[in-house]
């Protein structure tokens, strides 16, 4: 059933090649903007994820906390917050001496002043500033705990960066969506006008709006598909250029590419169907 409409769409695409190519490149420009943003977003997300993985909470223990108490505390932490690793006073000193390295400084420090601690890797849901602050407060209530540190300032910065990225994603998405609607509406209007005689004859023969509109919608989908491919090629080129200068810049994963193309097609479908509903009312009686 749809073969006829696809044939009609392809026929129109070929008959009005200039208009079709202009549409493809206009859409490609808008989609490339979205693609570049996705590339930045993907790589920033990867970096943030890597940094986020290193978010730890250090729970310093009282010197008089016994082994059984520490194990009980670890069990409680495992139940409520995440995984924990015990670092004894000796291990803490060993790490400290490795980091400092200078024997003169170590001699000045004298005996080991470092307390035993638990390094807590929080669950992903708790890896944000408000949740971490709350966890810290709760942990400080335990009698075995002397203090809790988690680098609140940079956690806040990371959270702000994440929120900013999300807001930017919404803004760029809206801009691209509006650009696509604008391009498709105007292109389809031109396409309908270019085929006005055909549309009028079809309406006189009793064609429903859906019958008349479907080839145009399919044509818009074809153009959007081509535009998405062009945009992805441009973004791939950019990624290759960046990868030569910056380590770790990777291209979008398959799921993101599929979502990008699928989103563009859905948007094109909605935009073209809505535009044609308006345009066809101005053609034919």
């Amino acid at each position, binding site marked *: 059933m749809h073969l006829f409409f696809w044939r009609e769409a392809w026929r129109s695409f070929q008959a009005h090649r200039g208009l079709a190519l202009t549409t493809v490149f206009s859409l490609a420009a808008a989609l490339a903007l979205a693609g570049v943003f996705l590339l930045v977003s993907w790589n920033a997300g990867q970096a943030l994820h890597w940094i986020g993985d290193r978010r730890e909470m250090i729970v310093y223990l009282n010197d008089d906390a016994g082994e059984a108490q520490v194990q009980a505390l670890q069990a409680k932490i495992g139940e409520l917050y995440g995984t924990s690793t015990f670092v004894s006073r000796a291990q803490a000193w060993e790490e400290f001496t490795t980091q400092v390295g200078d024997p003169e400084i170590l001699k000045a420090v004298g005996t080991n002043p470092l307390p035993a601690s638990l390094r807590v890797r929080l669950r992903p849901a708790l890896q944000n500033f408000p949740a971490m602050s709350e966890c810290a407060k709760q942990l400080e209530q335990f009698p075995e705990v002397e203090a809790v540190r988690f680098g609140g300032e940079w956690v806040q910065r990371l959270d702000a960066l994440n929120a900013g990225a999300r807001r930017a994603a919404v803004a760029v998405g809206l801009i691209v969506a509006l650009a696509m609607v604008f391009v498709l509406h105007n292109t389809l209007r031109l396409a309908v006008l270019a085929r006005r005689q055909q549309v009028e004859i079809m309406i*006189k023969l009793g064609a429903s709006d859906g019958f008349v509109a479907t080839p145009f919608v399919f044509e818009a989908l074809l153009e959007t598909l081509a535009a998405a491919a062009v945009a992805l090629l441009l973004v791939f080129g950019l990624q290759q250029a960046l990868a030569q200068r910056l380590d770790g810049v990777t291209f979008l994963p398959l799921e993101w590419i599929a979502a990008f193309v699928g989103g563009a097609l859905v948007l094109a479908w909605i935009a073209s169907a809505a535009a044609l509903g308006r345009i066809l*009312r101005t053609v034919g009686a």
Partner: protein
Amino acid sequence: MIQFEHVTKRYGERLALDDVSWRMNEGERVCLLGHSAAGKTTLLRLITHETQPTSGTVAIGTLRGGRLSRAHRALLRRTIGVIYEDFRLLGDRSVFENVALAVRISGHFADSDVIPRTLRALEEVGLHGKQAALPGELSFGERQRCAIARAIVNRPAILLADEPTGALEPRSAAEVLALLGRIQQEGAAVLLGTTRPEVDDAFGGRRIVLEDGRLREGGAPEHAFMPLPAAQASQAPHAAPPAPPAPHTGGA
């Protein structure tokens, strides 16, 4: 089947139809005779709902009066075959594609339906050998036949022909009129609009005459109604006029 009740149509200051009342029955053959600008095309356009009456009521089947929704208009037009004076063929489509388009619009999308119906219609009008030609490659007579094939391919209940022999030489004109007569005999109501009395004479059937937008002769069909022979009707069933549940009844 078609009924006009006190229909008046104005285009701005110009009066195209003035208080016209007439009706036409199923399977009837009617010739609408009138000079140029007498209102024939307006009357045909009112039947297809391409325009609305300024006052009065136009009823087609069960669709009575008022402005129809776009969906109902499309439904109505799918039961009416129209042969336009200027053919209205798609210049970039072959003869076959022009006729097949009407079949697809009627709701038959599968090639297994479209191809045989289209070929049969082309055979009926004698264009079987020209199916791959573009309209621009055909003579006027052949284009007219193509337009007729497109109008009859879905076996409409009503066939409207606006000056169908206007561009034809006498022999082609006679063939076209014979073809329209045959379609009427198969069960379709055929309304032919012409400026030429000799066409009316050749076509036969009931005559209605329009003059400066007013009906001068033949508004009612009682003296000319030609009932369809039952055997022929069953051999070639024609599409019934539409009966949508609730046509819009907005302003005229």
